[in-house]
């Protein structure tokens, strides 16, 4: 493999972004109205993700039921064609995927007002159609949108993004080429605050650089929150105008 220039001296990255620029983020909600109670379709760069939320509904197994609050389950389906090369095996029971599911459940457990829906279950299904780095962050954004569409009470948005550290420069929102050549941090930020619900570091990062990486990550997450919020409000206005024109 030829040596790609990850971050040029002029300050440009492989896809022409600057260090603090996000990838294109497009999202829409209420995309799968008949299949689910809440759904979203999210494109973050080349990540393409469908999220479906079903519930709050009666749990399929009585043993999963909690008297005090709703239970959340997350199932991630990473399609075999989601990467450049078709994968030979299914990703379903990989430990990596199980870990992601657990992390997502635990992230949203604290942010959804579960005590309002006792004895129910909220099922979240995610289909990853295409992935290009920073998957975990995109999954969080997708779930947030779908949960809002489903009308499930939450305290705030959770927005996720990944940040890499190239030498001493933090790079926001990595794609897969960048992700494979540097260590990355994934954050899940609650609303406009500086509170982190999720924080994953998978490779070595100098302790003294962590702070700058987190700072740019939080700023990026806030921007993503704004973009999602704008899209949601646009959708809300459209629905509102439909309602008023019917009357």
């Amino acid at each position, binding site marked *: 493999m030829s040596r790609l220039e990850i971050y040029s001296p002029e300050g440009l990255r492989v896809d022409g972004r600057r260090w603090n620029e996000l990838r294109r983020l497009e999202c829409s909600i209420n995309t799968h109205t008949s299949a689910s109670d809440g759904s979203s379709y999210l494109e973050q760069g080349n990540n393409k993700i469908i999220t479906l939320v079903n519930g709050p509904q009666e749990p399929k197994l009585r043993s999963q039921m909690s008297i005090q609050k709703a239970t959340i389950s997350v199932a991630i389906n990473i399609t075999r064609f989601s990467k450049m090369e078709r994968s030979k095996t299914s990703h379903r029971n990989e*430990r990596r995927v199980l870990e992601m599911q657990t992390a997502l459940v*635990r992230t949203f*457990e604290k942010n959804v007002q579960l005590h309002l829906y006792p004895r129910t279950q909220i099922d979240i299904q995610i289909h990853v159609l295409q992935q290009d780095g920073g998957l975990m962050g995109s999954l969080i954004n997708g779930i947030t949108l779908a949960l809002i569409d489903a009308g499930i009470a939450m305290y705030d948005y959770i927005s996720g993004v990944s940040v890499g550290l190239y030498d001493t420069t933090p790079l926001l929102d990595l794609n897969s080429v960048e992700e494979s050549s540097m260590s990355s941090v994934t954050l899940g930020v609650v609303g406009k605050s500086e509170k*982190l619900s999720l*924080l994953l570091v998978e490779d070595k990062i100098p302790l003294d650089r962590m702070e700058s990486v987190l*700072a740019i990550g939080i700023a990026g997450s806030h921007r993503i929150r704004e973009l999602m919020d704008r899209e949601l409000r646009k959708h809300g206005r459209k629905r509102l105008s439909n309602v008023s024109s019917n009357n």
Partner: protein
Amino acid sequence: MAKDIDISSSEAKFLIDSLKQGFRFDSRGFEEFRDVGIEFGKDFGDVTVTVGRTKVHCRISCSIAQPYEDRPFEGLFYISTESSPMAGPQFENGNNTGEDEVLCSRIIEKAVRRSGALDVEGLCIVAGSKCWAVRADVHFLNCDGGFIDVSCIAVMCGLLHFRKPDVTVAGEQITVHSLDEREPVPLGVLHIPICVTFSFFNPEDAEENIKGDLNNEICLIDATLKEELLRDGTLTVTLNKNREVVQVSKAGGLPMDALMLMDCCHKAYKITETLTDQITSELKRDADSRNQFAAMLSSENARVS
């Protein structure tokens, strides 16, 4: 986990109340790691680590295997962290797909294997055909919280303590020398990652945690089993002595202020330093006790400089 340990709401309330007043049940400070006991067995790579009442045994073994085709110059390294009912009745036999078990094994995997703590290239014997396969088997003997931290120490101590038999290569012919025949060789350990787990408790209600600016969340280091059962969130930081963050895992749970998390990382570094020093001194003591006659047999004589 198959069944959970019963815990009453009075106990939960009492724990939070006493934390608010600054007390932990075992009279430790909030940021105090329990004393770590490291015991080496008779064989190389046989370690038992005790932290409080948590007890973890790790055994390193090696065999000769064929390397992966895409990585002909690298040896193999596996870590198996299977919990069994031996550690406590809450663990099920043969079922390691529980949330906590998956997280534990993934964190150990990331902290030790993916961070390159073991020099796998040094395990190569003949490129593409023969290499050492090193295996770390972690056994949980008793559970009182802090499995991740303790098993990471156990695996690292095991790797540092282990010696693999010496080999000589002549063309395709390789000879493995038994331990009596030739001095066995230690593994190449590149750095010592240390995991420190923080447990978060929310003394206020959920809304205050998310919307408020109080940042009153309590954070404990090295929780006991009871504290683990009642905590609202957890963060595992893995660091080494070179001030590198090897791995951080805060898989959801209580949202925490970024500055508090940074603060946790710095606290973890202090613990990393003391634990690394302890590990190296324990290893040295073990090596000295094994070689107590070395000075006698040595032909070296004291040089006057």
